[in-house]
């Protein structure tokens, strides 16, 4: 039957599959199975929230984010991207807690009617550490995993190709939408839409931009759907895979270990055994 050999030896690029298909990543960390990297990211993010204090998350960031980032050679990009992702939230969370923590008393600094407190600072730093850990973990995964690696791996494990596709394609939509929004903004500015004036003007300017972004995206989705269906996308069942990311028993054990560790951590925290 069609597709009978699509499960065999997928981790080895066969003689006939061109060598450039399923290129392995540039570092050992890149070459880890996507599920392993996803587990690491998730466990790191959740553990950062669960752990108390400042030291815990800081160590977590060092070991589970910075360390692997250095090994994978993506530290620079990681810092830039994670900052971009988290800066707005980080700044507002930090400031809110620094100045407005309820019940805080030890005054550090007064600026007019608002006061920065020592307790506020401590809490703000803790929040900051968590935000850094979460955005760092997610960014690390994003920078070292190609969407196609993840999709193919999920499919190999039995996820429907259509579901896997939606997951991957959704991520890809974001840059396309951003680019589209940029073009639409340019077209509307060319018709005199003022994006450099007062705040009120700029708010009024949102509809002429958001409208075409959404309508256009919808129209594009229709076109894409037709093109996919024209290539047999809706056929039920699994599809043939040309390659798949490798996995190993060791990694399987590592994933289980990480998850169990996280579970243990949660239990310890809930029962109050560990501060």
């Amino acid at each position: 039957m069609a597709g009978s050999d699509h499960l065999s030896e997928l981790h080895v690029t066969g003689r006939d599959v061109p060598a450039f298909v399923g290129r392995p990543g540039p570092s050992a960390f890149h070459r880890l199975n996507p599920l392993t990297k996803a587990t690491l990211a998730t466990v790191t993010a959740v553990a950062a929230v669960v752990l108390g204090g400042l030291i815990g998350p800081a160590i977590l960031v060092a070991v589970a984010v910075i360390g692997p980032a250095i090994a994978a050679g993506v530290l620079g990009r990681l810092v830039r991207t994670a900052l971009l992702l988290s800066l707005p939230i980080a700044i507002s969370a930090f400031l809110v807690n620094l100045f407005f923590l309820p019940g805080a008393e030890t005054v550090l600094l007064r600026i007019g009617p608002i006061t920065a407190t020592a307790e506020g600072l401590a809490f703000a730093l803790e929040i900051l550490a968590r935000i850094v850990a979460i955005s760092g973990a997610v960014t690390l995964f994003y920078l070292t995993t190609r969407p196609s690696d993840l999709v193919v791996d999920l499919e190999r494990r039995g996820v429907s190709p259509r579901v896997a596709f939606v997951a991957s394609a959704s991520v890809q939509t974001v840059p396309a939408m951003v680019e589209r929004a940029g073009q639409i903004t340019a077209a509307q500015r060319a018709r005199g839409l003022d994006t450099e004036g007062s705040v009120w003007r700029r708010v009024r300017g949102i509809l002429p931009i958001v409208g075409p972004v959404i309508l256009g995206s919808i129209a594009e989705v229709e076109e894409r759907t037709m093109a996919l269906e024209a290539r047999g996308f809706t056929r039920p069942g699994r599809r043939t895979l040309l390659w798949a990311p490798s996995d190993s028993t060791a990694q399987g054990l590592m994933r289980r270990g990480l998850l169990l560790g996280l579970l243990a951590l949660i239990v310890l925290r809930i029962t109050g055994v560990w501060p």
Partner: protein
Amino acid sequence: MSLELAGVGYRYAGAGQPSLLDIDLELPEATVVGLAGASESGKTTLCLVASGLAPRTVGGRIRGTIRLDGEDVDAWPMHRLAERIGIGFQNPATQLSQVADTVFEEVAFGPMNVGLPRDEVIQRTWDALDALRIADLAERDPRRLSGGQQQLVATAGLLAMRPTHLVLDEPTAQLDPAGTRLVADAIARLAAAGASILVAEQKTDLLAEVASRVVVLDAGRIVRDGPADEVLADPALPELGVAPPSAVRLRRAASAAGIDEAVLGTLDG
């Protein structure tokens, strides 16, 4: 293997009137049929209906019969039709799957979807790339190619399904002259190799070059169907909203000015 539309009509969901009426069209083997007509005359709708996307994916109501090699395809699901009739669209970028990092994987997408054995997927992919002379693009990222190249990749993706018919809806509409030339040459080569193609185009010069037969639509009906040279030289074309090919136009202008057409010589435009 011929594709026949008999008495076909089609109305989009929620539309006040039908977009296609009384369409009788036969698309035989090894023929390139050009489809011309003013904007909104129904060219795209006819392409969607011929490929089965209408009504299956697009919705709406169809009447009449569509037969592939004598068999009524009304009950066929889309993925089964996709293996027989490939359809390409104007916009090169939206036809890319977005999940392929290389042109090779992009072209292999269709065969992979239908679950063919791996060897066959690979064979068909190389065959399709060769047919369009883009094997040298196999390693490239499809998203970074020019519009014309992307159209060729999209067409290769269709060919890899080994369809009996190709339907191309204004493949050069969004391309620059270099891209248009690439696609026109590719269609000519496919035709020479015996492909059955229905190609809708505003560029009648292109149709003059590659089509042996031309069908003209007007308000959803077929108003002309005959050999390409005859139909493209029909004096009623401008009224029907179709610009005649440059060669035809020049000859007509010459004789209208009282100059013997023969003076122009052979116009291979």
